[in-house]
């Protein structure tokens, strides 16, 4: 069962995405900021991370930079979901496998997650 980490300070959005992913059969953990996410991926490497941009302690962008700088994690797939900062993230294609603007269609993000998890496990 692929393991996914959801990173979002907005509790309801994190819970909704978690429910959707669990319905699809993923194992899901959630944390509420980039710093907690970095600690979590170092403790247990997930198959994929879905992160928000604007968060306390460490933004999604800073989190992705830290992950890419860590040799052990460098190829960890990260999907960014964001409202206003989607374009900032798209300028850094080396950091994110995909960028979604909120509000996004559930089917679209599920498809992207499935693709990257499959590619990663090949």
């Amino acid at each position: 069962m692929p393991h996914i980490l959801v990173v979002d300070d907005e509790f309801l959005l994190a819970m909704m995405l978690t429910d959707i992913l669990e319905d699809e059969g993923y194992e899901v953990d959630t944390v509420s900021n980039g710093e907690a996410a970095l600690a979590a991926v170092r403790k247990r490497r997930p198959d994929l991370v879905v992160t928000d941009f604007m968060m306390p302690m460490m933004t999604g962008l800073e989190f992705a930079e830290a992950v890419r700088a860590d040799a052990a994690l460098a190829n960890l797939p990260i999907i960014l979901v964001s409202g206003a900062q989607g374009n900032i993230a798209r300028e850094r294609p080396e950091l994110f496998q995909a960028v979604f603007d909120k509000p996004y269609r559930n089917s679209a993000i599920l498809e992207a997650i499935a693709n990257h998890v499959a590619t990663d496990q090949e």
Partner: protein
Amino acid sequence: MQHAHRLTSGIDGLDQILAGGFISGASYIIQGQPGAGKTILSNQIAFAHIAGGGRVLYVTLLSESHERLFQTMDPLAFFDRSQLGAAITYISVFQTLRDEGLDAVVKMLRKETKRQDATLLVFDGLLNARDRADTDFDVKTFVAEVQGQAAFVGCTVLFLTSSSVTDLNPEHTMVDGVIDLTDTLAGVRTVRELQVRKSRGSRALGGLHKFEISDEGISVYPRIESLPARVEASVRAESKLSIGVPGLDAMLGGGLPEGSITLLAGPSGSGKTTLGIHFLSQASDAEPALHFGFFETPDRLRTKAAALGIPLADQEGRVLTIERMPLADNILDKLAHKLLDQVRSLGIKRLFIDGLGGFERAAVHRPRLIEFFACLMDQLRAEGVTTLATWEIRELVGSDVAAPAREISAILDNMILLRLFEEDNQLIRAVSIQKMRDSHFDTSVHAVDFAPNGLMLGGALSARQVPPHPQR
């Protein structure tokens, strides 16, 4: 009192009410029911702060998602998505509060304020924090700690909360100011009002001030009665302005005294607007005029003037400005501010208000009207503008005209009465001067006729024809 550095709200009326704005580094509570406008107000203040080079940390505890919040703000002129994540950061501390409690939230706010280098912190959802606190003391401590650490780094704090039933909220004792937003029904109209309940270190304008929410965001109209009194403009007491009808100028002892306010009372059809057009026709570069009316559109007023044969200054110039206020859902203080702004910005010397009834209709709380008019007139006197304002008397035809709006006439300088009465099956118009401040005037009643060039004064009516004087 030492002059404190201010964080302006970016909303003129609110800055005026707050005696210049929020005090930098101080803490305020903005409270109101859901829908009262707290979120729009605080975001508008936040974006004005950014425009001035500040940085903002916006913290929520609410269930509404930030994206939803942004969508609500999108149509508003002040909102700028390109600043999100740059000069303004929105974070939710819901999970921190739930998992680790208020102490952890305080700690996170301190770290984030520093990390974002924020000069304004907005904390949306103090009520939620209160639900979480075990006793009142916890919230007091929370507010005190957050404002203490913010003040230490010079960061101003706005706590937003849904107002509770009781007026005695414990946290109010801790903050420097409390702003109350209300949203009530008056008849079928919605009335939004703002009140500064507490304002430490500055003298705020008291009472309930009207505000409205439009695509521009929030506009606040300070209550006219609460504006600081102003000194009357120094005018030459002897100087008179022609009303535009020679015979009437003679009755007035030479014209309307400069800087005075004259009530023109009479029933519908008695010639009030026509007399006003005469007054406006005397406008010049040296004496720019403003028509501030509720009835005629600029086109209709000009058509009427042309039909009467009274020449008005053309549309393009600055000699005559015609403003028509729609009668629908007006805000009394908005009308007054609009009038005063126009008079000031255009340097108006001749003002015709047609009529005061338009203000009366906009009043939600009618007992304030006399004080409202008194203060509005004082503001106009301070501008040195000579004002003619109409007041409609209900009785169309008749001799037993009660002195109109006795209280209103008491706060004005002069009063001209126009009347209609029947004499041998003829409708006769008559004009009389009821009072003139510091000036001699003709006390007799004169007939008024419509001539090819507007109104023309007839001779004094004989004793037999004079209708009874209004009761004083």
